[in-house]
């Protein structure tokens, strides 16, 4: 299959959104684009399994390399493996749900949908890129749409949050950039460009690896809410409009985790090994600190944002453990967290539209007045605290099991601490869900009359819940997709470490 289609469809639908007359046609073009893209991704998934079924062992499938800046040997080199494909599925689902949730956007709807689609274009491009320049291009491509989405359609301290987010992410990119130039010149790749596959085959001296690894890992880590660079997450997410929060938490934070894995760890294996204690330390802090910080929050969006810091800590923990199972778990956690947090933000957005508040304390008994939305809310909450049968459990369990495989005592201690954080998660989730959904209805806005969800909201929720439940009930599906690729990746890392 031609992977460039994955870029072409968002591009065309973004153009269509701008060019067609009227708000309604614009949103239909956005929806059609999102549906087409999801269909394409699912077709790609089927093709992928079909090709793998024939015993194809190469790391990346459906590779294509279109020359871009030929004098610098930079090309649009694309290809997918199980890891990137699972990210693509996640992106397609979240984009569809995001477009549906913002269906009734009436303030400058065209620009809004254009920016949303544009944001997703960055994510698609990022996940399929096998050329570091292209990858970096798509990584930064998403920064400005985020800024504008928060700045124009946001709420609360939006100008502060938008600025903070844009600057922190830009700082992340700046670090990544330094790492990339280092790779470019130090791996002897000046004649073959920034191709990921080529660089992975080059042998880079350990000292050089150790020098550039922090740039790449911290740079991508800022996108993935690495402690202590997570501070953009709560502000950015809570000021953003619903769909943008879904995209931010569901997709954009995954760019960071994916980059840490695919670029930093994969290309600099010896350094990843060297720095793994630091990664474990920071991610354990993020998990525990994030969980405790969440218990103090009163605003639903802040609750979800801080819990995202905690949940994304699991991703980095899994990557830092450097065992195949842990990395599989990290990827699963990315998918699971993406779906779950998008669902959570969607539910919060729906509640907010009706109650005009996000303060937990001002809500109560919503199950009686808006049953559908409340159920969605509860499902998102349960997935977040890791209820078996939903995706959160599967992913976190895999991370823990993989982490335990690492025999180092300190690593096991970190695993235990991370495990323990689930209790805290249960505390804040139960408290929020209990207060908002259960009990007698309060008297505020939206509490007195029965307000059911509209078709678009239902559809959005169903799309995301389907993903969550499918992974929860049949984790082997995701596992089959991811673990062969993580095994290959780990193989590469092991060779890289032992070669030194």
């Amino acid at each position, binding site marked *: 299959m031609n992977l460039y289609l994955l870029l072409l469809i968002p591009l065309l639908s973004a153009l269509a959104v701008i060019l067609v007359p009227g708000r309604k046609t614009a949103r239909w073009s956005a929806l059609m684009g999102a549906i087409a893209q999801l269909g394409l991704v699912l077709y790609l998934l089927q093709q992928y399994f079909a090709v793998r079924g024939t015993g194809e062992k190469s790391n990346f499938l459906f590779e294509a390399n279109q020359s871009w*800046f*030929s004098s610098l040997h930079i090309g649009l080199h694309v290809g997918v493996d199980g890891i990137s494909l699972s990210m693509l599925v996640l992106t397609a689902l979240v984009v569809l749900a995001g477009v549906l949730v913002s269906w009734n956007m009436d303030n400058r709807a065209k620009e809004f949908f254009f920016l949303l689609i544009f944001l997703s274009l960055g994510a698609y491009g990022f996940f399929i890129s096998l050329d570091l*320049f292209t990858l970096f291009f798509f990584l930064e491509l998403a920064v400005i749409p985020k800024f504008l989405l928060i700045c124009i359609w946001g709420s609360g301290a939006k*100008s502060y949050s938008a600025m903070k987010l844009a600057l922190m992410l830009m700082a992340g990119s700046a670090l990544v950039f*330094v790492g990339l130039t280092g790779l*470019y010149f130090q791996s002897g790749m000046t004649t073959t460009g920034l191709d990921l596959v080529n660089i992975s085959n080059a042998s880079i001296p350990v000292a050089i690896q150790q020098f550039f690894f922090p740039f790449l890992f911290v740079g991508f880590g800022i996108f993935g809410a690495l402690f202590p660079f997570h501070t953009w997450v709560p502000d950015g997410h809570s000021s953003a409009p619903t769909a943008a929060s879904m995209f931010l938490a569901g997709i954009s934070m995954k760019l960071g985790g994916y980059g840490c894995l695919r670029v930093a760890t994969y290309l600099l294996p010896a350094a990843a090994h060297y720095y793994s204690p630091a990664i474990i330390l920071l991610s354990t802090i993020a998990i525990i600190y994030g969980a405790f910080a969440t218990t103090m929050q009163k605003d639903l969006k802040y609750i979800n944002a801080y819990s995202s810091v905690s949940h994304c800590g699991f991703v980095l923990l899994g990557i830092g453990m450097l065992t195949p199972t842990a990395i599989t778990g990290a990827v699963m956690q990315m998918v699971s967290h993406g779906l779950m947090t998008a669902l959570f933000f969607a539910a919060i957005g729906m509640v907010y539209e009706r109650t005009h508040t996000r303060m937990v304390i001002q809500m109560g008994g919503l199950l009686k007045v808006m049953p559908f939305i409340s159920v969605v809310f509860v499902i998102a909450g349960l997935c977040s605290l890791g209820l078996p049968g939903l995706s959160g459990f599967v992913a976190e369990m895999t991370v823990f099991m993989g982490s335990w495989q690492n025999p180092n005592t300190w690593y096991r201690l970190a695993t235990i601490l991370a495990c323990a954080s689930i209790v805290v998660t249960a505390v804040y989730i139960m408290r929020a869900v209990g207060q908002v959904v259960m009990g007698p209805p309060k008297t505020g806005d939206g509490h007195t009359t029965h307000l059911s969800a509209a078709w678009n909201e239902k559809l959005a929720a169903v799309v995301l819940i389907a993903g969550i439940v499918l992974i929860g009930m049949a984790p082997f599906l995701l596992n089959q997709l991811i673990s062969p690729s993580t095994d290959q990746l780990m193989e590469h890392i092991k060779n890289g470490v032992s070669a030194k």
Partner: protein
Amino acid sequence: MSWKDYFLILQPELSLALIIVIILLVKVGVTEMKRDSFLTLINLLLVLNFIGGLFIQTDGNLFHEMYHSNALTRLEKSILNGGVLLISWQSYSWLKLHRHTEEFYILLLASLMGMDFMISSNNLLQFYLGLELSTIPLAALCNFDLLRRKSSEAAMKLILNSAFSSGLLLMGISFVYGATGSLDFPVIASKLVSSGLVIFAFLLIISGFGFKVSAVPFHLWTADVYQGSPVPVTSFLSVISKGSLFFVFTATLYAAFRPLQLEGYRTICILAVLTMVIGNLFAIRQTNIKRLLAFSSIAQSGFILVGMSAQSSVGTASVVYFILVYLFSNLGAFGVVSVISTYTGKENISDYGGLYKSNPFLAWVMAISLFSLAGVPPTAGFFGKFFLLLAGASKANYGLIVIAALNMVVSLYYYLVVVKTMFLPAEGDPGEKIPVSMLSRVALVICVAGILLTGIMGGVYDYINSVCANF
């Protein structure tokens, strides 16, 4: 060499001279022309000049090799011609109201002609002549807002600073002449040996250039001059003048001062760091949009210096490419400033509040231009900055790259402040709909198209790289 060759090689300068003569004839009253038809005529001539520059210019050497024309100089001159054309379109409404339109064009084109001579110079004397021909009309242009005192102040500052920096340059040039006995670039390059006198001369020349391209610590004139001059002149100063000087700076450094590679490298690195850091830090504090763009253009000079520090053909390519990108981005931004300040007379950043609501077109053009200046994708600025820094990194000086990368974050801040001001709803009056003349609308659209396409289309960079590969 036949007379035809002279015409073909000197085509850029000769056609400018021809246009100037035509304007003079109009001015002395050979034909009676309305302001409108005059502007149409001149814009038409500039279009012809641009097209002619693309297709007619030929390579060759003239005047005992003092003047040379090759693929690179042809490209550079065409870039400048295009930029002047855009500026002329953008200033249409302003010029229509001005009493001295003819003089404006005479001075502008004379300055451009000086730059063309300078770019083609293969000899320090010829370079100096071109430089003076380009600066003196500029000082008069700065004074073109005849009723504003700030404008005269700007002209005064520019002329004094130019005189000072020309003095430094001349002193450097004479020392070089003393050390090598020649003013020709190739001879200098072959005879130059590192000695106290030569390094002193070299520093003097670099300082002279530093003044002209407003590198820190020689930047002090920039903000005042940019703020005081009429907007079209400011854009000319910040894009065309600076661009041409960077072209010449790069060429001189590589062609004449090749033996001083190490000294050149160190000096350029120091200048680059100072220019980026100080330009950016001062830009944060500005409240006037023209001053902000002035400091931003200082910071951009710093980034260009990073690319220059590569001292290779890739470095030259990245500089030329960046100037092309910078031309579109800065002219986009100044184009909007020009439209707004001509109509409302307001130039503060806070006056741009609510622009998105009242004038979405202008707000988007401004935002895209600023994003390009900040270097975020998919605008061409991203590619320009990336290639500059990539070229700079070829010397494995990662400290410089880290500083440059972090400076990009700082610069993003003040560009985003402007974007934020435009896009957030204004407190109180959102402002009125500002009419944009047809020509400036076209110019703005060309700038935006340039910003969006120059980067994405990899062929542009590849072409520039192949042109630069031989120099």
